[in-house]
């Protein structure tokens, strides 16, 4: 191992990165773009869902019910219509997520103390949203129903104080139930997958493709020196982008950050070693830039996106998929990120994730160094 040779390779790599406007652009803009994209674009919160109302009754009581809807943060009455056809058109073209039909005998039945049914048409093209909305609908209608019963009893002289039961909830870690606080920390895993695996897989495959690798390996430079020299600049870039992403998350999107920076950077460094080794290994096998970049996206970016718990919680995945996530380094990193940001979990309590990450880092580095030979065949 010679430091002179290692530095010669690293210096050359830095000059190439600085001179290649495309990769430089990816390095500088990608963290900001991803964080902003997911920070603003992906919102799993249901707020102010548009409701169209067809009120056949038009009474004081039906207006009361609608006020209950309007008071809820989840619904917003967008329009009042005069017929079914307008209602179904609004659902068809997406102007309404929910259509509520209040029957013509709504107030009459309430006065008579007879059961009454309010119809709700729900756009269930997104089943998850529809499920959540139906829950909220039930809650609003039941709340109103309880009030109606109490009023009825009171009017009939039975002014008893009904015993009420309720749950007093406190949401911890993500007090405001903002989905951005849940999502944004995980973006760091995406950023590092792109920098670590995607960019590095390009840089080494490029050397094979252009024939410069042949010249390089005809010199006394060692395989280890080539690998470390080429990866060191990307390690620095990856860590830099981690800090940039974290700063945007904390100061722009107000994501709570309760843990320590040292723990964050340690976990990030481990994950960076993992993705760099994967990128290096891929490029050694693929030897063309196109193949390498495709494989890198497929085995690092996609799992980090879909299976790491970044967007979709692992507990809700089918058992088979849950098992698969266990061999994904991104899963452990995303878990660490969420705990550091939202819970402020100290390092000793993160060993469950940090140890697997360290094992991955060690094993993949070993695989990467073994895969690269200074031979053309």
């Amino acid at each position, binding site marked *: 191992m*010679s430091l*002179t*040779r290692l*530095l*010669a*390779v690293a*210096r*050359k790599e830095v*000059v*190439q990165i600085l*001179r*290649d406007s495309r990769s430089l652009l990816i390095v500088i803009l990608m963290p900001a773009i991803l964080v902003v994209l997911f920070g603003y674009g992906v919102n799993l919160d249901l707020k102010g869902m548009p409701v169209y109302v067809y009120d056949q009754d038009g009474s004081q009581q039906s207006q009361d019910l609608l006020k209950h809807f309007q008071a809820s943060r989840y619904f917003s009455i967008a329009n009042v219509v005069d017929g079914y056809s307008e209602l179904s058109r609004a659902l068809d073209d997406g102007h309404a997520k929910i259509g509520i039909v209040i029957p013509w005998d709504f107030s009459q039945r309430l006065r008579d103390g007879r059961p009454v049914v309010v119809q709700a048409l729900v756009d269930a093209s997104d089943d998850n949203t529809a499920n959540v909305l139906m829950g909220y609908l039930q809650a609003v209608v039941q709340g109103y129903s309880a009030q109606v019963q109490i009023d009825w009893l009171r009017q009939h002289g039975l002014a008893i104080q009904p015993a009420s039961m309720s749950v007093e909830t406190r949401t911890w870690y993500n007090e405001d139930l903002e989905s951005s606080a849940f999502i944004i920390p995980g973006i760091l895993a995406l950023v590092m997958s792109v920098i670590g695996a995607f960019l590095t897989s390009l840089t080494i495959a490029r050397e094979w493709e*252009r*024939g*410069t690798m*042949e*010249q*390089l*390996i*005809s*010199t*006394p*430079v*060692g395989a280890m020196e080539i690998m470390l020299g080429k990866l060191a600049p990307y390690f620095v870039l990856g860590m830099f982008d981690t800090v940039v992403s974290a700063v945007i998350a904390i100061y722009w999107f107000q994501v709570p950050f309760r843990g320590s920076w040292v723990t964050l950077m340690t976990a990030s460094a481990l994950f960076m070693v993992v993705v760099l080794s994967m990128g290096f290994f891929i490029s050694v096998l693929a030897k063309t830039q196109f193949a390498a970049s495709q494989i890198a996206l497929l085995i690092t970016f996609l799992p980090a996106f879909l299976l790491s718990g970044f967007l979709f919680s692992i507990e809700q995945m089918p058992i088979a998929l849950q098992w698969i996530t266990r061999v994904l380094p991104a899963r452990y990193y995303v878990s660490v990120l969420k705990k550091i940001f939202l819970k402020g979990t100290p390092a000793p309590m993160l060993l469950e994730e940090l140890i697997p990450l360290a094992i991955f880092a060690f094993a993949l580095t070993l695989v990467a160094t073994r895969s690269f030979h*200074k*031979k*053309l*065949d």
Partner: protein
Amino acid sequence: MADIACSVEVTKLVKRFGDFVAVDRIDLEVRKGEVFGFLGPNGAGKSTTIRMLCGLLKPTSGRAQVAGFDVSQRPEAVRQNIGYMSQKFSLYNDLTVIENLRLFAGLYSVPAKLLRARIEWALTMAKLKGQENLITGTLPGGWKQRLALGCAVLHKPPVIFLDEPTSGVDPITRRQFWDLIHQMAEAGVTVFVTTHYMEEAEYCNRLALIFRGRIVALGTPSELKRDFMKGELLLVECEPLGDAVEALQSAPGVMDAAVFGNALHLVVGDAGHAVPQLKEYLARRGIAVSRMEKIRPSLEDVFVSLTTGRETAEERKP
């Protein structure tokens, strides 16, 4: 490294890719300070041989020593003592001239106190002084090749391997490049160079002709012309050329007939005997001969004569 007579010593070297034998039991020796040419058509095994000698490919069997080190056992020692220029230009096009030189100086561990002087020397040699900050990719072909040579010799290696260094550059640039090669050799550097330009072969001290993975001839250019030409060579100018070539291929005493420019080269056993016979043979077929005389063979003639013999011999095998 101190005192070895041979810079390159190859014994029964074989390289197989699957079923294909790219290099077939070749033997050769290159003496110190020699310009050794490795001549052959594309695909004959030139690059494969040179890559084995530089430790880039693992020999299937056989032995090769370069600068006193075995290429299979001490590849890193070999690499420190050689300079290599691959067939395809393979410096970094997105680096400047000086950045490429600094990179290779680093890779060859040129000591810091010699660095400036070595780079200066390489720039002068490659006639690139004042062009240090140009982006390599924008340089003309000949400049790139000189820069590649400069990068390969920064550490003053005793042996340099040049794989078709002049392919794709114009004849004047080619000539200048060969002047550089001879300068190196005069300074005591051993130069192992491959080419498929026959006229370049004449600039070498010694040559090996390689064909289908085998060395078919080895010696100085004049030895090759003297020893490996079976028979004597006749130059024939006649009209019409096409008919003449066809007729002569089956003429008695003619071993080979081939078109060279606007004339024919014939290989015959004894020129004195054949000339009157062939003149009459052609006259009978209505072919007008304006000139027919014995000439000194060029390396190309030697090569054609050696390889056509082998081709037909191999085709005759069942």
